């Protein structure tokens, strides 16, 4: 009998549903919310309201695209956290109601763990143990992945996440939210001619707050002399800040590879969609003899396919949750 898993992701501002059959993703549908753009960040109350309106159509479309009916589902996997409480509540409650009526198991999934599971979606998968650099809007981590559900975090950010660094830098330049993809696009037309200091953090931990301050001072200094400095130099400024963020990430990843001796290397999370990070990692891989794994773009930002993949591993281990499960906005791994 086939294992059919419905996965639901609603941790932030995207409502996503996916169907997995026996380890293969059959569909992955995401309703993105554009209402937040004009506020320069995700507005939790608006996000929650949008999830409420999106959840049924998204699940329905995922089932339809997969050619699966609700009665054929073996389990429901859902993001339990971390994330925005009002957003999580919609996905978690919907999953609980659905599982109750269908009398099938519930599987809770940790959003950050699931980002790593995006690496198991393509045909070519990393072998264990591998290193994962997980970079998103809320987290920046290096982990040793010993097995699908055996993940050891060996480095993390002490302040801002890499995605936050992109978004805050973008906000200073008055770019729309989220600024990460916008900086990526603008940077492709510029050159990294401005330099910013590399933070001096020992070991495998990250810090981006110093860079944020340095970037603000840099802008203030130039704008004082030329009020149009940002507009006139936007592509170069973007290429420069992007280059520094990417080099901070890759320098730590290289250190982790040296320390652990692991040469199987993957990236995951929203920022792994960054085109400079992707090519820089490929180049690094070639010069350091790494086997590099990069998920397709649709599995980098928040998506339910990665939740389904994590759910599949848990299903095989019979790691189920019961109906008392609640969302965890700050779920520590």
């Amino acid at each position, binding site marked *: 009998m086939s294992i059919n898993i419905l996965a639901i992701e609603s941790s932030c501002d995207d409502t996503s549903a996916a169907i997995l059959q026996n380890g293969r993703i059959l569909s992955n549908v995401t309703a993105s919310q554009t209402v937040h753009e004009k506020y320069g960040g995700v507005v939790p109350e608006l996000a929650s309201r949008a999830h409420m309106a999106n959840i049924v159509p998204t699940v*329905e479309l995922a089932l339809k695209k997969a050619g699966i009916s609700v009665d054929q589902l073996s389990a429901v996997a859902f993001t339990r956290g971390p994330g925005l409480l009002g957003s999580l509540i919609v996905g978690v409650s919907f999953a609980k109601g659905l599982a109750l009526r269908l009398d099938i198991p519930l599987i809770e999934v940790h959003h950050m763990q699931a980002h790593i599971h995006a690496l198991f979606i393509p045909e070519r998968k990393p072998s264990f143990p591998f290193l994962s650099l997980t970079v998103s809007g809320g987290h920046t981590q290096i982990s040793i992945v010993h097995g699908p559900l055996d993940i050891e975090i060996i480095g993390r950010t002490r302040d801002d996440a890499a995605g936050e660094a992109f978004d805050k830098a973008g906000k200073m330049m008055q770019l729309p939210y989220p600024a990460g993809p916008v900086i990526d696009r603008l940077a492709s037309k510029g050159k990294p001619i401005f330099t910013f200091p590399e933070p001096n953090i020992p070991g495998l931990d990250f810090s981006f707050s110093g860079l944020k301050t340095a970037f603000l001072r840099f802008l203030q200094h130039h704008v004082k002399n030329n009020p149009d400095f940002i507009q006139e130099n936007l592509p170069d400024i973007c290429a420069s800040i992007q280059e520094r963020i990417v080099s901070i990430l890759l320098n730590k990843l290289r250190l982790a590879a040296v320390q652990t001796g692991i040469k199987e290397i993957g990236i995951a999370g929203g920022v792994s969609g960054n085109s400079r990070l992707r090519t820089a990692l490929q180049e690094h891989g070639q010069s350091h003899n790494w086997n590099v794994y990069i998920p397709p773009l649709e599995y980098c930002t928040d998506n339910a396919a990665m939740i389904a993949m994590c759910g599949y591993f848990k299903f095989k281990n019979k790691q189920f949750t019961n109906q008392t499960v609640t969302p965890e906005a700050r779920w520590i791994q």
Partner: protein
Amino acid sequence: MPELILNIETSTDVCAVSLQDGADFIGERVANEPMSHTRMLTVLIEALLKECDVSIRNLSAVAVSAGPGSYTGLRVGVSTAKGICYAGGLPLIAVSTLRGIADKMIEREGKNDRRTYYVPMLDARRMEVYTALYDGAGREIHPIHALILEEKVFLSYLEEADRIVVGGPGADKFVAHFKPSTIEHMEVPVRASNMIPAAWRACLNKDFVDLAYFEPHYLKSPNITISKKSLF
């Protein structure tokens, strides 16, 4: 033909579920612990179904309190109801929490008197309540609105009605504060069984809401402030 309807009431601190067959009450479960809705709602549903010896597969519809009330509570109730309905291909019924309280008051008095006005009230912040106005025949005189309580706020109703009866959690606040002499008070707790008459009416009239796009009565648009502080 049995018409088994599951009622979900999560718009206040009370998390409650009830089961009805047609217009008749079968059972109810209530958890009074605040902030427990996310954990308790489906657990209460399971317990209620078991106690009443009803399989969830035999439900014909789900009714959910549509508010007004706590946003978090409403989200838990509506999302859970959508999950059950979607999985079972069931119709969804929305019942105003205030309508439920008014129905309870009218049912208790059993008079069907158009010259009595019923004012159900739910607590909002400070001296504010959510309220609506119904006559004894169940007709809606004023739809749901937010109101700041003052001593004489309901007295003008006495030009049209002989009696005014207030009820629900917001009315407790009103009575305690103003001790009105011309207005009667009935204590009516928020319960899922309050929803039974309205859920049954909706079922008979096939007055179902759109499962995909239904949203609870938020009443207020979100309060968003944008920082305009300049960095330069």
